[in-house]
Structure formats: structure tokens, C-alpha cells
């Protein structure tokens, strides 16, 4: 029985390696360029909002940063609703996933789609199907960072 398993494992391994060798590699360089340009552009828009908030509304660094996040989240939610964010994401890859706008997209997309299952367990619950883990790990890490600071850093 064991020897059969070993033999089958070998066949599987050979097959998997061959299957992987057939599959074309994603065009990493081209994808990276697109991610760089789109991601960079989103951040530049963020910088613009940030500067406007500081100059025209006299906001401090934290406030300007918050209003930037809120504005970008709003824009991304709107674009997702209009069906445009997915079109950007198809080309930009990480360029539109990694910025805060991608977080917003990941909230709207599942919630919108599950509307037909109701407003509580459809929209309400699915808002966090992808963004929930981000909050769980982000907030938990911040608590640990805070506690370490409290106990070990003077």
C-alpha cells in the first residue's frame, strides 16, 4: 500500500510539474508596469487631495490623511457601483488592489452582488467578506504594537 502511494505521488509530481510547465507565465513585467502606473496615479491623486486639504482648509497632517482616505474610498465605491472599477482592475492588477481604493472595492463588490439575498445577511454581512479579515488582522496587530509599546518601550 505504501509503495503504491509512493509511486502515485511520483506520478502526481511529474504530472504537476509538466502541467505547470505548459501554463504560460503571467506577463510579470507588463503587469508590474501597469500596477506601478495605476497605483502611482491613485497615490498622486491622494497627494493632491491631501495638499488641498492642508492648504485650503488648514488641516493638520492626520486630518488631511483621513479626508484623503474618505475621498478615495468614496470615489472607489462609486466606480465599483458603476461597474468601472473591475475594468480598471483587470488591467492594473495590484495597482488597484493595494491602494485604499481596493479596500473600498472589496467592500462594495460582494455586498452589491448579495443584495438579492436580503439587506441584513446579504448586503450587511457580505460587506466584510473580504474586508473583514483586513480589519481583524490590522486592528489586532495595532493592539499588539500598542501593548508592546506599553510594556517594553519607555
Amino acid at each position, binding site marked *: 500500500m505504501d509503495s503504491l502511494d509512493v509511486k502515485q505521488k511520483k506520478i502526481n509530481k511529474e504530472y*504537476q510539474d509538466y502541467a505547470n510547465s505548459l501554463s504560460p507565465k503571467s506577463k510579470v513585467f507588463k503587469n508590474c508596469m501597469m500596477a506601478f502606473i495605476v497605483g502611482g496615479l491613485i497615490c498622486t491623486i491622494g497627494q493632491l487631495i491631501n495638499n488641498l486639504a492642508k492648504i485650503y482648509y488648514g488641516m493638520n497632517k492626520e486630518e488631511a490623511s483621513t479626508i484623503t482616505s474618505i475621498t478615495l474610498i468614496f470615489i472607489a465605491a462609486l466606480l465599483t457601483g458603476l461597474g468601472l472599477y473591475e475594468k480598471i482592475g483587470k488591467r492594473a492588477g495590484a495597482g488597484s488592489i493595494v491602494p485604499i481604493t481596493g479596500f473600498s472595492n472589496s467592500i*462594495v463588490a460582494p455586498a452589491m452582488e448579495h443584495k438579492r439575498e436580503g439587506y441584513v445577511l446579504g448586503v450587511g454581512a457580505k460587506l466584510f467578506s473580504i474586508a473583514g479579515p483586513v480589519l481583524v488582522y490590522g486592528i489586532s496587530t495595532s493592539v499588539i504594537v500598542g501593548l508592546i509599546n506599553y510594556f517594553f518601550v519607555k
Partner: protein
Amino acid sequence: MSKHRMGGQTLYLTQNPPKIISRASIVGKKEGEGPLAEYFDKIIEDDLWGEKSWEKAERRMLIETAELTLRKAKMEPRDINYLFGGDLLDQIVTATFAARSLGIPFYGLYGACSSMTQTMSLAAPLIDGGYADNVLCVTSSHFCSAERQFRYPLEMGVQRPPTAQWTVTGAGGVLLSSDGKGPCITHVTTGKVIDFGIKDTNYMGAAMAPAAADTIRAHFEDTGRGPNDYDLIVTGDLAKYGRKLTIDLLKKDGYDIEDRFIDCGCEIFYESQDVHAGASGCACSAVVLAGYLLRKMEDGEINRILMASTGALHSIITSQQGDSIPGIAHAVAIEKKG
């Protein structure tokens, strides 16, 4: 020892081989822009088809396909002994809800994308053995309902890797009968569940290719036939890379099928339609068989085919728990007689 078996996995239907007397297919808009558009009975104008949800739209496609198949044969639901149906959604709700409207005695079958030949494999011996006169086989899939069940929400801005496949929106049906005119099902080869350890849910073709190769090889061994006995050998939805893997796996067993081997997943879309490796879904082999292949048989361009729909039998849960993707393929030999 049963009289009607050949080898380990094949049935030989000799008493009254069932004839495919009627066929129908309905497809989505994107499929209607593909190379096989002219072969389908109906192309719906948008993915929602005026319904409230994609699931309801898929259900309506399945019901209308079933009704159309019957209408073409001038039959009513009460003339049908059994309805065999399957689809991709959890608890095969499309097929069951369609059966609720049709009112035909029903078996719901889950074989993922292998459903089309799975239903035919079970319907054919019932007719050959004299247990049924008319059996209707229908399957469906819908890009939007499948995508959100198996992958990401549609509006999520994610990239699809080159090996990803596009689920066909559509429904296909065939009516098998003991009486009437049409190509016959002569052999049924039931597949085993085969798993070579592929875990990537974006590379289904590789997960299913070993099952396709295994069933085709079993069919040749059981029947003593070879690739040259068929005008076409057809698989369900292996797509570009899965097709290549199947050819290579069968070459190792000494069968060269390359010159007469097509995969429905490679036929239904143009490369320019941005579907990456090709098409998939229960409807993929169903609409290509019911729309295109059986029409080519009627026209006399091909006379004998081996049709093997292929399925990936994983669920979201098993994949998240790190299990690999088991594959299956069921083959039926279809032959034009006289």
C-alpha cells in the same frame, strides 16, 4: 456476469440503442458572439434575461431549453418517462427547480461540468433495457451565478491568470428515445474519479485532463476500438492546456488522438473574446453537443463521435482546506446508423 458489459467500465447497448431524436440549446450574449453562434437555437440578449437574479435567469434558460427540446419532437412533458438534469449551483437548484415546473419524474445529478454525458450515460441504458421510452437530459450553467459561487464577486477588480477559464452561460438538452430518427448512443463508458494532485482552482483543465485521458483509454481498452474508429473525439471543458495534457497523457498509453480531438471549451469562443484558456461549465459541452456536434451529424459531416464531458468535483470548502481537485469524465459513443 452481465451480458451487456464490455471490460471494466463500458456498457454496450445492443438491444434497442437509444436515439437522440431532439436537441436544443440556449446561450448567453457572449457565446452568441462566438464562432458557433449560428448553431444555437436562441441567444439571450443579456445575462439577467429580465429576471430578478442570475440564478433565476439560469433556471429559465434550463426550463425553456427543456420545453424547446420537447416541442421539436412534438412531445409533451407527460410523454417523458424521466428527466435527468444537473448544474453547478449548490444543491443543483437550477435542475431541481426546473423539474418542479416541468412535472416530469426527475433525477437530479451532480457531476459538475461532466453533467451532460453523465445524464446521458444513465438515460441510455434505461431505454436500451426497455425501462423507458423517452428520457430528457438537460444541463445548464451561468457565468455570473457560477463566478460568484466559486470565485470572486463580479465587480471585484482582480486579474484572471492565463490558465483561467470562462464559464459558459447557457443550457443544452437532448431527448433520448426508443423510437424515432436520430443518431444512436451505442456505448457508455463510466469514468472513475481521478486526482493527480492539482490544487490550483484557476487551472481546472490540468485537474480534469487525467480523468479525461483515463476514461478515453478505458473506452478503447474495453471496446477494442481506437482513435481511428471515430470521426471526432470530444471532451467537455479542458480548454487549451488541458487539451494538450490529455493528448500527451494518451500518447503515453499508446493512443494518438491529436488529429481528431476537439475540446468544447476551445470551440465556443474566439481567442479575441478574452476568455484566457477557454470555456468551462456544464453548459459548455451541453450546448456544443446539442447545437453544433449533433447538427454536424445530421448534415452527414461526421458519423461517429466519442463524447466525454469533464468535471472538476471540488467545492470551495475542500479547496480552502487544502484538498486537491478530483476530476471525472464520462464518455458516450454516438453513431449515425443507416
